[in-house]
């Protein structure tokens, strides 16, 4: 038991500590409200501005000339094609590389190096990837093309898929692998029939996250796929995409174009958020199952 004298001596200091604590805790609550506030502000503005112009026309008509009315059909289709191609090119590479890192080369020096480099590629500026593909494809070919855009997106897909594939395969218990091997399965068969199957939900999540990442990407498309005002499915020609059209329209002085930019922004954001929510649901269901 402390004497009353000591207690009174300590009281101001104790009060100061308490005060400092409540200030810090208040700031923490404030910071969280601040962070959530941005999300509400941005999504709210997007819904408000985007819904105003979101008519049926947006999905059925081509991009208009300056000052005219129209829709976003060609950029929507263009985005679907570019994203689809990017995923189709990037995913197998990513899965194979991730497989090597988690299965064949788990204790390999190569794996450590690839993991390090992959993590850097994961957050590398996407505009640099655009420049890279420009140098690699657009310049030698002499013109902008959809396929160059798709390859640029694929370069962004690879690190995401590598990362999740490796992580998910490492979560698969080794007993499963040993059991499969013990009944005489060769390693390749074991990986495809057992490991992939056990890690499937996580690997699909990785692909979904990659789709979410590239469907909003603008910078790598600016000087690869460029833009196209007209309907075009030619992979060897420039192709419109939603992000690039938003970029062009938003910075234009025409009200109709700006409105279309908002609608396009809403479409992209809803798609991306939906994808990330589905991806999250898949992994959390998986975690509960384990």
């Amino acid at each position, binding site marked *: 038991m402390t004497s009353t004298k000591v207690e009174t001596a300590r009281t101001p200091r104790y009060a100061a500590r308490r005060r400092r604590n409540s200030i*810090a805790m208040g700031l923490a609550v404030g*910071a969280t409200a601040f962070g959530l506030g941005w*999300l509400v502000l941005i999504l709210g503005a997007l819904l408000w501005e985007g819904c105003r112009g979101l008519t049926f026309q947006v999905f059925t008509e081509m991009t208009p000339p300056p000052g005219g009315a129209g829709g976003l059909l060609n950029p929507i289709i263009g985005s679907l094609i570019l994203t689809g191609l990017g995923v189709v090119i990037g995913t197998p590479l990513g899965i194979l590389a991730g497989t090597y890192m988690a*299965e*064949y080369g788990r204790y390999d020096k190569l794996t450590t190096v690839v993991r390090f480099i992959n993590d850097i590629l994961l957050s*590398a500026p996407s505009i640099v990837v655009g420049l890279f593909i420009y140098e690699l494809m657009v310049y030698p070919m002499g013109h902008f093309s959809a396929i160059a855009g798709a390859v640029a997106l694929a370069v962004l897909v690879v690190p995401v898929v590598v990362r999740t594939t490796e992580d998910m395969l490492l979560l698969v218990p080794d007993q499963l692998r040993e059991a499969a091997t013990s*009944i005489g399965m060769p390693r*390749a068969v074991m990986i495809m029939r057992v490991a992939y199957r056990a890690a499937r939900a996580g690997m699909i999540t990785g692909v979904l996250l990659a789709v979410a990442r590239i469907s909003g990407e603008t910078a790598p498309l600016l000087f690869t796929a460029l833009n196209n005002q007209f309907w075009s499915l030619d992979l060897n020609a420039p192709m419109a995409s939603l992000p690039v059209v938003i970029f062009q329209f938003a910075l234009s002085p025409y009200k109709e174009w700006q409105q279309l930019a908002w609608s396009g*922004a809403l479409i992209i954001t809803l798609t991306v958020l939906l994808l990330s929510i589905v991806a999250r649901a898949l992994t959390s269901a998986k975690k509960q199952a384990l």
Partner: protein
Amino acid sequence: MVDVALEGGAISIGQQGERGRVLQRLRLRDAVFRRLTRASAILVLVILGNIILSLIQGSWLALSTFGLNFLVSDAWNPVTEKFGALAPIYGTLLTSFIAMLIAVPVGLLIALFLTELCPPWLRRPIGIAIELLAGIPSIIYGIWGLFLFAPFLQETLQPFLINTLGNVPGLSNLFAGPPYGIGILTAGLILAVMVLPFVTSISRDVFEAVPPVLKEAAYGVGCTTWEVVRYVVLPYARVGVIGGVMLGLGRALGETMAVTFVIGNAHHIAGSILAPGTTISATIANEFTEAVGDLYTSSLISLGLILFVITFIVLAAARYMLLRLERRIGS
């Protein structure tokens, strides 16, 4: 799984030749698959190597023309073909600095809230909401910043800063000038929101990795929550937090679209953070398709190379720190 062993035809006892052939085929397939995966892993390294090589190749003309002068000159004149990277580098560093100045304390405080204060049932929803900020494409931040945030700043925060801090000696240059709305400060603020989720989620993860025993011991001797965080959690998680901050910095440095919308694209170095400026990525995004002449294009690619080198160093340092932390927690 028996069907796998029997794949490629039924094997009955006595058909030794058939069995051998099946095994051979399986072995071949295994070898092919193994090579394929290894080649793909190596391809990741090849991609990075090629990015660096092609950037060096593309920037060769500009770098050999201007030499090291390219880094310290603030000239940017497509007509006379005089190019220097100083203004974009300055803008890139300054906007990222402003972003980190805001995002780091706020991110740490949110992580503190999520790990120490938040009721458990709220933890996941709030965590997810903050991470959704990272999921919003950067062009959305751009369009929002241009149409709503910049006009808002022009009418509220910027006049306020000019009228108060603009009169303080020493700071007056930093907050001088008319409120444009767009500019370095606006770009920095939007970047802050964009990197906030990275700082938050990594800080939260490393805070959670602090052994409960340490925190309980501190609480046991009568520490307040703040003291536990300040003297136990933060020192323990320091390396990881720095790693997370660097990761966020890497993002901020390379961010393109959001900045392009609100930076103003002015190739000069103004003392004021309210003035328009430019960043490396915004310059490339704005001018690359319109660049006429090899030297102009090459100068822009040189900017890309500089950006890549800076972010590479920052990200490599971040990964190294996070790796060190992982090893310590693992051991």
